[in-house]
């Protein structure tokens, strides 16, 4: 929305994701309320169709099996948190990359570079699973290696150049670099867990989201195929490395979740939808072993791979909940704010990501570039001199922002008590709580200078 109104990512609002996801959402909003869903669905359809065609070209006995598995995995409600998260798009792009990789397009290398860059600028870490394929690509090929590298580079530049030009033209290149790259290395990936914890975490998530069987089958068949007759063992190794690579965010730390409560971070495992299918494709397409080739060999795997996920999808369909039933959508504060109809910059959400939804619902811009605040809870050394908080407060006063959502009880989670005290004192000086009819807690604040 900010982009549609002429704002520039990173400069006018902070997020540490690469920019493609904002451009996708911008395009979705441009096409209306169903725009984003349409883009997402078309992308899923396109990916499914290409993958099906690939399966058919390689004469798999059930060419629909792996595309079906991909869709069951990526639309698994236990892991995807609905649609439109970055890793969902990178999963589509990764599978498209794979289809191009094994396809015969004359622009193959260019497209591979193009898709790699799309993935990198949608979710950086998801570029990692592509590396083994790119290495394989540079080691094996009919055209000279220099030509391959140039074409891949050309494809990458097709995405990189306009992005860089856009940020350069809008004087935002520094912010882009700091927020989308430096931040992730200096903060987001610095919290460490033991390897044992990561292992337990992976096992727990795979169990909890019904990915256990597809993951185990892909890993076991992939590993077993290395010791059996297979035409493309090198590619199989690349796919197995990619399988592990898609889970790399789990090993990069930065999350405050415990292994038995991954919470939001369960979506980190969504890219397995693509990598599991890629491993299975290579196992089935290039095997020369009779126990893995043919209809009868594949028949049990149809059920093993799809039964549990099919059951989950069926349960989800038969127990669908309307998003209007979401407690945040039904919050009395939202109804009250609708009556007040605040304009751009007149409403701010502090330290509660769920209520960020209000900006979109009210179609207004946030007064500060700092639209979410959980870093104050995650990192002890985040904003040690209150500079960011000060910046937020200045923005609120500059815009004379009328309303702020802030639940004071959530501030107890701030790692640095000085930050919490500073912010509370600011709020108490300039804002006063509003009693909203029907609300159980007092979380809405109003600028004091506005008459009752």
């Amino acid at each position: 929305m900010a982009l549609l109104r002429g704002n520039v990512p990173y400069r006018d609002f902070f997020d540490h994701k690469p920019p493609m996801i904002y451009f996708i959402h911008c395009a979705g909003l441009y096409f209306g309320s169903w725009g984003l869903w349409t883009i997402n669905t078309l992308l899923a359809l396109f990916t499914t169709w290409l993958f099906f065609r690939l399966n058919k070209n390689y004469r798999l006995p059930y060419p629909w099996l792996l595309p079906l598995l991909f869709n069951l995995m990526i639309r698994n409600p236990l892991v995807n948190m609905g649609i439109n998260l970055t890793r969902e798009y990178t999963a589509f792009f990764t599978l498209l990359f794979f289809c191009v990789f094994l396809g015969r397009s004359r622009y193959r290398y260019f497209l591979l570079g193009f898709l790699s860059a799309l993935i990198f600028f949608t979710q950086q870490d998801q570029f990692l699973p592509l590396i083994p394929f790119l290495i394989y690509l540079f080691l094996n090929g009919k055209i000279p290696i220099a030509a391959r590298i140039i074409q891949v580079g050309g494809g990458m530049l097709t995405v990189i150049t306009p992005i860089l030009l856009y940020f350069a033209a809008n004087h935002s290149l520094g912010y882009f670099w700091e927020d989308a790259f430096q931040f992730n290395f200096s903060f987001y990936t610095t919290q460490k867990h033991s390897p044992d914890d990561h292992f337990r975490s992976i096992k727990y998530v795979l169990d909890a989201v019904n990915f256990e069987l597809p993951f185990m089958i892909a890993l076991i068949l992939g590993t077993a195929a290395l010791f059996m007759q297979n035409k493309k063992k090198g590619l199989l190794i690349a796919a197995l490395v990619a399988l592990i690579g898609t889970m790399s965010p789990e090993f990069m730390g930065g999350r405050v979740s415990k292994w038995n409560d991954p919470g939001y971070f369960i979506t980190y495992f969504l890219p397995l939808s693509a990598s599991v299918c890629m491993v299975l494709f290579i196992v089935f397409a290039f095997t020369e072993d009779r126990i893995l080739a043919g209809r009868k060999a594949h028949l049990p795997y149809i059920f093993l791979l799809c039964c549990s996920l099919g059951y989950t999808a069926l349960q989800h369909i038969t127990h669908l909940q309307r998003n209007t039933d979401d407690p945040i959508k039904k919050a009395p504060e939202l109804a009250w704010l609708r009556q007040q109809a605040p304009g751009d910059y007149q409403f701010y959400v502090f330290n509660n990501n769920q209520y960020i939804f209000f900006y979109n619902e009210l179609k207004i811009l946030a007064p500060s570039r700092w639209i979410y605040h959980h870093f104050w809870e995650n990192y002890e050394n985040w904003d040690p001199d209150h500079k960011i908080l000060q910046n937020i407060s200045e923005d609120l006063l500059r815009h004379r922002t009328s309303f702020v959502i802030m639940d004071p009880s959530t501030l107890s989670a701030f790692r640095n008590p000085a930050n919490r005290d500073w912010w509370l004192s600011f709020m108490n000086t300039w804002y006063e709580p509003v009693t909203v009819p029907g609300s159980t807690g007092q979380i809405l604040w109003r600028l004091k200078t506005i008459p009752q």
Partner: protein
Amino acid sequence: MNMNKQRYGLLFVLAASVLLSLLYVPYYNIPNGDKEVYRCVGRVLLRGGVPYRDIFDHKPPLIFFLNYVALLLGGDWAQWLIDTCLGLLATGLFFQLGRKYRLPFPWLLPLLFNLMIRDFLMSLGMGMTREYTTMLQLIFFCVLLGKHRYRYFLLGLLSGLIFFMQQDQVLALVPFFVYAFLPDEDTIPVFTRILGTATGFLAIAAPLALYFIVHGSMTYFWQDAFLFNMGWYTTTIKESFGDHLRKLKTTLDKGNYEVPFMVAVILGTCSLFFRNRKKGFILVCLVAVIFSVIPEFLGGRDVRVNIEGMGFTHYFLPLSATLCMLLFAVFAFTEEPVLQGRKAQAIYGILVCASLLYTAIQHGAHLIPAKDDDAISNPEMDFLRQHPPADYQLFIFGNTSATYAYNEFNILVPSKWIYHHFYALYDNWDQDHSFLISIEQDLLRHRTTYVLDYSVKHFFRDPSAGELWHSFLEKYYQRVDLPERPVLQIWKWKGVSE
């Protein structure tokens, strides 16, 4: 060389069985209300009492006799030894069967069996009835596919053992009996087969019936171990088929049984359409798998779809045997190259064992001593340890797990009603309060010193029963305050001085 390999295979799987059993040595075998009750009934037997007449439980009698033998031989370690030896016997026989049928990895399915039956997410430790019936079922399967001259007698004997250990588990044997009695399945006449089986069954049933007749307890036995289960335990709380299915899925997921279950059922079903020498037998094994989870569909438990913290996971323990039987039938009789041979079976073998092996390793690496369990380490137990009660001098109301105390102090219970959750489960349980009155009379008769009352406010579905019980306590007992346990009430007999 091949012989040596086979021997190593046997040694490997026996060692695995012992190793997995070691995870449940008494020091680490978590207490559980059911197991504590079995042990209490075993003690009643040891002291000359009779199950059902002198102490109530709705289980068949063999589990009590097994606990009696364990107590006779020394207690916890003796039971561990019985358990481990039975596990080893089932494992050894199953290995021999795999070898006889020329499976490429005869140790694979016995290993799976051990990993499943010792899966701590399901088993609730050692000593549950379904653990024993599961082992007996696997022995039954080995006898069924063996060529022993007393085959039918042994099948009958094992069915008797299973039936009198946990009645519903005999259902899983029914399809095998139907198969065994098919005219073409054996050269022995059908009538002789039935006679042999019946004789084996009677070898168990007759002594048991005689025991209860001699002790004037036959009616109690019939009422408690049979009528009760059909009248109460399987008829009250009903859930929809969807609920059962969701619970089944959740339990399999959380207990790490999902992969073996899916692999076995899917391969079994596919085998019906593949080339297989014994499709009828595959069908029998598939039906046995379904029948082995039948307790889930018999109702009677107050469990919800979300099984977090529920205590009924052991109802699915018999899958350890039936899934292995199904996989055995698939692998042993297949004529399909995609299921035959070392490579095919190695892949499926790793698939079914990997997750369970991981669970076992995690469990082994994070063992928690049983003494740290809430039932053993708590303020009321500390209090009782300072004031150790004698026979009949302690009564625990409303908490089956707390019956552990009777076993720690090696004492008899003053009333035959050792557990009371039926008051919380059924609206019309003990409508005339005759059971409650009998408890009260027993407490007065024995002048029982301490009563631990866990029946919090809404424990009783029938409020009048709650009123009767609490007014009785107020009248004859005085409260002992235990600051760490504000809800629990320790009551002390008023006539006894401090």
